[in-house]
């Protein structure tokens, strides 16, 4: 897929349009001019969500009713789709080629991967950021997985509520076990599916992982099930079923669901050391990029095309050596958008790219 043109109207401070390069696009400008807003617009066009806020209303230009982001996406040599996301209040209207579409059908029209400081949570934050990274990656190649995740979360929520009321009403262990049984049975089958999908996805990431993309240290990843060391993970369903039975009392005492894939983690190490604890922030950033690139490669294997790669404020996050290695790697693969406020960045990396100066939200193709 190729984003040929992007337009914005009353979205943040943006105006005008960008005629994009299929390779590298550099959005250049001073702080506060709207470089990141353009990436946000692309992300909105791709996912129908903002990466900055959950209240889309905030993204509509102050004093305006309707915010619009529009883009032409080339799907193949002869097929181009006109995508549009129109925001009105907190609601959004999605359309493809001028016809309204449901979110389910709209998603998948344009896929994008973002690298920004929020995404650093994946390498330095809590396990839930890493689980989300895996789950989003799986959903991108296997959309029906969304339902498995949402059913699983629902079961955990119901189970927590049940355990909480068991605690409040002093239920006996036997009664609690009885009440938990129908939820645990679903949990076993849903958790097994999630476990299998994540293990398989990490395997696929591993086969394409550029462990030494940035030289020096070697990055490794491994899916760390919370049931590790508790028995045979090869027969996950049997193992979790046994653990659930064994731990009823602990769950009753704590009032929370203690067993399942919501306690798992993705272990990221460099030269065998835990990246989260011992990695420098440069090492963490490199590792994040290596993970994102692996994600993009798996997506390519599955779909035969690359998603967009959006890199926000890339020079604040990475040194020029790494940026050079990264851009070289991506060259000829993904359509890439980077934002920068540094002249030296443009001088160094603009060969073969399109440079847009952003002033007051308006893009102007830079002639060099």
């Amino acid at each position, binding site marked *: 897929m190729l984003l040929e043109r992007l337009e914005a109207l009353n979205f943040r401070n943006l105006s005008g349009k960008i005629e994009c390069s299929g390779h590298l696009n550099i959005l250049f400008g001073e702080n506060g001019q709207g470089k990141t807003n353009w990436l946000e617009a692309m992300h909105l066009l791709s996912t129908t969500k903002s990466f900055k806020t959950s209240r889309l209303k905030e993204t509509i230009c102050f004093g305006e009713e309707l915010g619009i982001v529009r883009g032409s996406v080339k799907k193949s040599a002869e097929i181009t789709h006109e995508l549009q996301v129109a925001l009105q209040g907190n609601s959004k209207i999605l359309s493809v080629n001028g016809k309204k579409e449901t979110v389910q059908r709209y998603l998948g029209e344009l896929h994008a991967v973002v690298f920004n400081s929020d995404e650093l949570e994946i390498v330095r934050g809590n396990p839930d950021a890493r689980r989300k990274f895996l789950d989003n990656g799986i959903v991108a190649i296997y*959309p*029906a997985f969304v*339902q498995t995740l949402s059913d699983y979360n629902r079961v955990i929520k119901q189970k927590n509520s*049940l355990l909480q009321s068991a605690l409040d009403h002093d239920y006996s262990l036997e009664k609690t076990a009885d009440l938990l049984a*129908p939820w645990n049975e679903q949990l076993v089958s849903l958790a097994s599916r999630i476990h299998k999908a994540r293990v398989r996805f990490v395997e696929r990431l591993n086969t394409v992982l550029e462990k030494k993309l940035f030289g020096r240290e070697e990055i490794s990843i491994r899916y760390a099930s919370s049931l590790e060391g508790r028995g045979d993970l090869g027969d996950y369903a049997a193992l979790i079923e046994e653990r659930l039975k064994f731990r009823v009392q602990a769950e009753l005492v704590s009032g929370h669901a203690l067993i399942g894939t919501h306690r798992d983690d993705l272990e990221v190490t460099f030269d065998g050391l835990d990246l989260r604890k011992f990695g420098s922030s440069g090492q963490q950033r490199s590792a994040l990029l290596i993970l994102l690139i692996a994600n993009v490669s798996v997506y390519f294997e599955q779909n035969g095309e690359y998603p967009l790669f959006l890199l926000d404020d890339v020079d604040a996050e990475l040194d020029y050596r790494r940026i050079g290695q990264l851009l070289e790697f991506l060259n000829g693969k993904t359509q890439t958008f980077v934002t920068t406020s540094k002249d030296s960045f443009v001088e160094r990396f603009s060969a073969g790219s399109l440079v847009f100066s952003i002033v007051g939200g308006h893009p102007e193709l830079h002639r060099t």
Partner: protein
Amino acid sequence: MLDYSEPVAKLIDEFKRLPGIGHKNAQRLAFFILRRPKEDVERFVEALHEVKERIVFCNVCNNLTDVNPCLYCTSPARARDVICIVEEPYNLVAIEKTRSFKGLYHILHGALSPIRGVGPDELMLANLFPRLSPENNEGVEVAEVIVATNPTTEGEATANYIARLLKPLGIRVTRIAMGMPVGSDLEFVDEVTMDKALTNRHEI
């Protein structure tokens, strides 16, 4: 100060209690009532009264009925050896529309949901067990119980709970199938349903 005179405000408040009715809709309904002729309103009030006076839960199956036991439970034309369990009376209506199920029903009036404070005791399940002995079922032994709760996590948990209670009694417990809607094109089916349909495929 109230926006409207007290009787009108009171009516709006009552409408707001109805499911799916917000403030604006409640206002619209209240003004609709105000503009109707008196006879129409009285007929409406009468209908509300009557439904509360005359409709009761069937002692046997918990269906809503004006004769107790209900017409399904007393019909000689229905097969007494199969009982289909549903969550709500309108689920029964949906199954009846197929005209292909000839057995009896049992209505739970809900599904397990700890979040909403619904446990097994809140379901109308206790009167199912007496029905399973032939002496309470016109001499007929119940051979199968079909669990037709919704395909949600709550519906599944309920089905599972019921199966756990009934299986030890030696009764065959079945669950309705999930998958493709009939008469639709494959392309219009969402991924999740398609996925279920593929998983639950059968040999032809």
